[in-house]
């Protein structure tokens, strides 16, 4: 793999010494729908080190997705602080925050990961294009990453022409193409049968280990959790246990 232009990753570089990449303290979040107030996070404290692969588990509705969205700066919090590589994302402008995401983060969402109107390779190269990589180089790197996830033959197909597992692998390729410091994955195997889920998970684990990237994976599947370094369990918007996988 060719070397990444690391100079772009200055904030992460600065935080390297501490080796803590995610630090959250006293995070609270309440959804206010007008009629109803739903406390989704009720004082979460969390630290994740660089290169860790963390699983967040817990029953449906306990706040896993909310936590992920708040940590990654996609959503706002009501109380507490979150530092990503030492940077408080909530203090940045929307544009700066967006740029930070584009450079430092990769996402695998629960639903809606790919643009149906673009081909696999076009989907994968998007994060590179938004961070200003030249189109030629972006295409080449996207193809390389697609090859890594075993989909080079499907590069020019649209998502509708791919199977569920293939689609999720394209998503992972997209999440990894810009060599992000952190990859957020929300139920990445939710829609997949167990064998495909294992393959996808194995792929993520492999990439985590070769690239020393941080992975935060939300799942309710214990087998998936078992493949991670550490499992954080949540209930009713709080972390109830935090430990290495059994």
């Amino acid at each position, binding site marked *: 793999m060719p070397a990444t232009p690391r100079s772009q990753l200055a904030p992460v570089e600065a935080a390297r010494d501490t080796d803590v990449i995610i630090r959250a303290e006293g995070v609270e979040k309440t959804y206010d729908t007008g009629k109803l107030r739903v406390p989704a996070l009720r004082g979460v404290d969390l630290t994740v080190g660089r290169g860790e692969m963390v699983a967040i588990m817990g029953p449906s509705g306990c706040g896993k997705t909310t936590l992920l*969205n708040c940590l990654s700066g996609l959503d706002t919090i009501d109380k507490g602080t979150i530092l990503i590589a030492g940077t408080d994302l909530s203090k940045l402008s929307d544009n700066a925050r967006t740029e930070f995401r584009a450079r430092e983060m990769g996402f695998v969402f629960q639903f809606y990961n790919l643009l149906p109107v*673009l081909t696999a390779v076009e989907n994968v190269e998007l994060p590179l294009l938004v961070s200003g990589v030249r189109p030629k180089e972006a295409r080449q790197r996207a193809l390389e990453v697609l090859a890594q996830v075993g989909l080079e033959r499907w590069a020019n197909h649209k998502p*509708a022409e791919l199977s569920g597992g293939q689609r999720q692998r394209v998503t992972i390729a997209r999440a990894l193409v810009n060599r992000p410091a952190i990859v957020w994955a929300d139920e990445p195997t939710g829609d997949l049968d167990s064998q495909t889920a294992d393959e996808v998970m194995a792929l993520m684990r492999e990439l985590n280990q070769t690239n020393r990237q941080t992975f935060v994976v939300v799942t309710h599947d214990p087998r998936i959790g078992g493949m991670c370094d550490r499992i954080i369990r949540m209930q009713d918007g709080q972390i109830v246990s935090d430990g290495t996988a059994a």
Partner: protein
Amino acid sequence: MENLFGIPMQSIMIALLVAFGLCLGVGGWIYLRHRIIFRMGIRNARRRPAQTSLIVIGLMLSTLIIAAALTTGDTLNYSIKSTVLDILEHTDELVVPANGDDAEANVQPGVTFPQQVAADLEAALAGDAVIDGVMPVLTQPVPILNPKTQLSEPMVTAVGIDPAALGPFGGLRDIEGNDIELTALPEGAVVLGKTTAERLDAVVGDTLTVYVENEPHDVTVAAIASDSILTGMQDPGQAGGFVMALDRAQALLELPGQISFIAVSNAGGVADGAEATDAAVTAIEQALGEAPYQAVRVKQRALDMAEEGANVFTSIFLVLGLFSIAAGILLIFLIFVLLAAERKPEMGMARAVGMKRRQLTEMFLAEGIAYDLVSAMIGAALGVGVAFVIAGVMGRLVGEFFDIVPTAHWRSLVVAYSLGVVVTFATIAISSWRVSRLNIVRAIRDIPEPQRQRAGNRWLIFGILGVVLGALLMWVGADTDKLFPYSIGISLLPLSLAAALRRFGLPARLLYTVASLFVLTYWLLPDSLHQKLFPVLSGGMEMFFVSGVMMVAAATMAIIWNAEVATSLVGLLGRTFSRWLPAVKTAVAYPLASKGRTGMTIAMFSLIVFSLVMMATIDRNFTELFSGEEAAAGWDIAATRVASDPMPAFDQALAESGVDTSKVAATGRLRQVASYSSEIRMAGTQEWKRYTINGVDAAFIEHSHLPVKIRATGYDSDAAIWEALRQNPDLAVIDGFALEGPTVQVGSPSNFILQGVQAGDTTMEPIQVEIGDPLSGRTRTVTVIGVLDPKVSMIFGLFVNDAAFDQVFAQPNQTTYYVQTQPGTDDVAFAKEIKAKLIAYGVQAESLEKLIEQETAISRGFLLLIEGFMALGLVVGIAALGVIAFRSVVERRQQIGMLRAIGYQRSMVAASFLIESTMITVLGVGSGTILGLILSRNLMTSDEFTGSSGAAATFLVPWGTIALFVGIALAAGLLMAYIPARKAASVPIADALRYE
């Protein structure tokens, strides 16, 4: 209006009401059979008010256009008719010396006959139940001057009427409504018409000077009456005149015992009098017996012309409105496709729980009918509003001639409403059927339908049907010499063939591209090539619409299937501005992915812009054609004289009256016999036809610049032709209106047509024609050696030299002295001076440039009005963009969230939407502009067109107007995308990502 396209409005209304009833019936039936379905449909309409209003706009457009066109017809019909009735009042027929067939016969200036004829006629008609009044009338054109104000009119009509016969004609009243007793007026008193009074700024008590045989006579204004045939106004727009008792008029005009016509009033009022015209004419003709006089149906003829004129306008507005209606139909279809897309999961669910496909169709139909009934109502009301605006503009253009009174006839509204409902219903029915076809599983999971490489059997069947229909239409068209079916057939056939061939796995892109390029070639091939490859058939104004629809369909298909090419250009731009590349990427991908929507929107814009560009281009080139430098043959001022009393030679008259002749560079004389008092026929044929005949003097020939379009063999220059004509009284030159050409023929069937030469020819053989004077009975043969270039638009007719003219004609209807002024002369002021100083001779002088300007101002005004009306269609395209853009934001909410998460800035999301809309608009506007320009260029430079109207090979493009249309379309498109784009940019990321 009583007729439309020759069909009685009453029948049209009844047929439409039946169809309207059927639509209502379907709605009622759905309601009774499945109230639930009906209610679901209605509820859907209420769910989204913003969307509902866009839908209503789309659905109302057809009705609006139809209502506006019909109401414009009503307005013109009413306005022209009431002007006609105001002028003619109780006069229904005129009796004049026999001078031609029914459609042409008229009062001829300068022709009088004994008053006794009227007395005899009255006696013979006494006791006739149909006719209640017979009145002898004397009219003569005279110059008049108001010494107090120094205002003059070289040609007003002096009228003498028999006061004893005035009763049945409604008497004479002044503008305040007081009765005027003509016999009680003092000697030398006249009743002045309103228009003449205004032009002379004359009031009651003023003494005016009237010139008879060049001698001044004083008359005093005893009263001012409204304009009518009795006060000297024979046609709208004239200067009017004054009236006095018949014996006094005969004395003043030195025509004792003479009259010009006999006015006849039918029993009944002003409007219904005309109904008895046929019976009255029979009675008059019986009474006249063998006497050489004839009855002229003036009122009936004028009313018919009003109806016809109104009809022409309605047809123009309807045919041109078809573009907007077609775009509106596309919009309706598009709206339904979008509605269906939005409700796909619900529809799938409904199907899964047992709803039949037919019931889905019925649900959409129910909803559509509800929309339809309401929006057609709004459309009809707005259509009347638009028609009233049109009436306002027309009033400004032709107010001098007609008082335009906005009028809406209830029958037109019923027709517009029910036609609008029926057209929209048909569209809705087809759309509903189309959108209710869906795969249940895919629908529930909202997965897009896959694009199959090989099409199903349905395509094969439709394709084969299309091929058969296309071939049939071509055959019918070729067989009956009608371009309309042939051109539809030849366009339908290749497209259908392409659809059929898809069944066999051939690539759709290749098939459709080849087919649509073929269709475009058919329509856009230059004339010369076209005639070699395809049969030459005849068509009319409807071809404008057919060509537009077919070319736009083909061009849109070509664009859609090759959009990758167009979008890669946009992509290149994106590369140059690499910061925007991601925005461009998504902007380009979406429209490519939904070809149907994109295609429909492109087609809408293309269609409207095509029609606008065509109109603007034709407008520009015609205006140039008829108002170009050559229009007045190099002359600056035309001094026209109708009076027949002697006048010294023009140059001498100018000098004697104290006109500054140092400003005159040259003069020439043209004496004209109008078509209604001349006879002409091909030598050796029997039937006399009519044509304007001019006798021109040597000076006129010498100083005119008169290009000849078609020269007879033996003459190798224009100068040779005119020199020959000057010397030889056996020769003549004629203008292009006498030629037969495939383009629209103007004039009445009794107009002379020159045989043996065609519009578009470049040379001709000399052709012999015979000309004659019905009054003197003399005839003569002349040889036509050239056809005048129609660029000379201010001078028309057949030209012979003075010697030939004098041999045949006793006197001209009018004489025009053309003047070339020295450089630097103010022609308008100089014309005024000539007019004032030569008032005694009744000379009306005008700057030719000003005349041309005035004429083109009116026709340009009408063309602009029509263009404005057509531009209404742009609303459709803009609404479509709006609907799509709003819908896209809703549809792509989660995708937007995802893009924002992976690093799209807000501005990038907004830019993506804007680029997408702009690209679609540009493609539509661009293809419409290009098609319009190519087609109008072909038209303007075709033999057929240049032959009959002489457009040079130069083709003018109204860049300004086109830029305006394009600018409006683009700006409106951007605006329509801007609001949803902003909405899209502010989508909260986490929220958007969460829900399915």
